[in-house]
């Protein structure tokens, strides 16, 4: 039986993981809605402001997460994952980190270069500055818009792959990896039923 305690992420990493995961689901849902659904104007405008506000918080959370990650090495991959699977696992996590950074950054660039010139007021509390020097730059705006959209879809693919991998290891390999990313509890510690 594996020593799950040694194979667990730190509590801070776990909290950041689940809070940001929930937030990203909201971001993707709202983003897709604004892009593909016919929404009532006033609702759509408010949704944009919430989406931007949460995006700012996620960018700050990512900075914290990256900082934490550099200081606390995560547990090694289980021995059962090797070869191509190990490469895929690594690539998947790199993709997730890339998206967590690039999606909000491209969104920030989009807002900063928009002709609309709306300030970003995070949940009505404080103003988040625009990226300087690109105000009204239509080329940057077009590029940022495309990047934001493409990276969002890449993010969806990476998340689905991430979840599918956990399900695959649990269902097919009979190895429950969830305890690695969950708080200590009697039930969670056991990876196989006694």
């Amino acid at each position: 039986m594996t020593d799950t305690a040694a194979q667990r992420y730190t509590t801070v990493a776990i909290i950041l993981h689940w809070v940001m995961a929930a937030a990203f689901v909201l971001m993707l849902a709202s983003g897709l809605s604004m892009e593909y659904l016919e929404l009532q104007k006033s609702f759509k405008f408010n949704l944009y402001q919430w989406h931007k506000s949460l995006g700012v918080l996620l960018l700050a959370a990512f900075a914290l997460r990256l900082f934490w990650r550099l200081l606390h090495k995560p547990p090694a991959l289980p021995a059962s994952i090797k070869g191509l699977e190990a490469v895929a696992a690594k690539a998947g996590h790199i993709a997730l980190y890339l998206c967590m950074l690039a999606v909000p950054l491209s969104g920030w660039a989009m807002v900063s270069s928009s002709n609309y010139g709306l300030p970003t007021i995070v949940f009505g509390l404080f103003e988040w500055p625009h990226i300087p020097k690109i105000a009204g730059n239509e080329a940057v705006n077009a590029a940022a818009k495309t990047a934001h959209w493409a990276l969002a879809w890449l993010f969806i693919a990476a998340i689905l792959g991430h979840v599918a991998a956990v399900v695959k290891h649990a269902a097919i390999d009979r190895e429950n990896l969830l305890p690695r990313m969950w708080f200590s509890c009697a039930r969670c510690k056991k990876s196989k039923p006694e």
Partner: protein
Amino acid sequence: MKKRLLNKKAVDAAADKIIQTLQSPKVQKRLLAFGIAKKIAFAAFFAFSLATAPAEAAEYSVDAKASKISFSGTHADTPFSGNFEEWTAVLTFDAGDLENSKFIATFNTASAKTGNAMYDGTLPQADWFDVKNHPQATFTTTAIAAKPDGSGYSATGDLTIRGVTKPVQFDFTLSDLAQSPVTAKATFTINRLDFDIGKKSDASAEWVSRDIAITIDITATPKN
């Protein structure tokens, strides 16, 4: 009896005759008429001099604190409204001399406030008021005419926003000029795209209404 050039009797007789003539009803009538005529002539001259004297349309001091210049429209199907908080105006008006009457307002575009932080942070930007390049907007009347039905006046003037000048025309009402202070009110609509306002980001008026209503409510007192 000494011979004199002027015979006293003759002089007396002449004097009597003059007095008699003066006192005669005919002469008296004529004198009366002359007196009245004098008064009429004087009055006429007075009126004439008044009418042809250079007209001095009354200058008014506009009380910016008691006045308002506001704007309104819709954004995302939600109505919004705001005021210009910093502006100055000159009002010269004479109901009998509309040709020399005028209203000139200069307003600081950066002073546009709706009370909504999002809107107030957006209005000064390059695609909206562009306050960096156009810190002021102006309105100058070019003609004022009284409306034939007596319901007020009509003003034609040049409105300049973002360096774009367009003619506007609107009706305005004036309170009783004999009472001070005087209030002038008007409401008119402009097409913001005529002034390139929001032209790059929202030319189709998908978000911000194309029509923006402007209301002016001026309180002024005559300068003495």
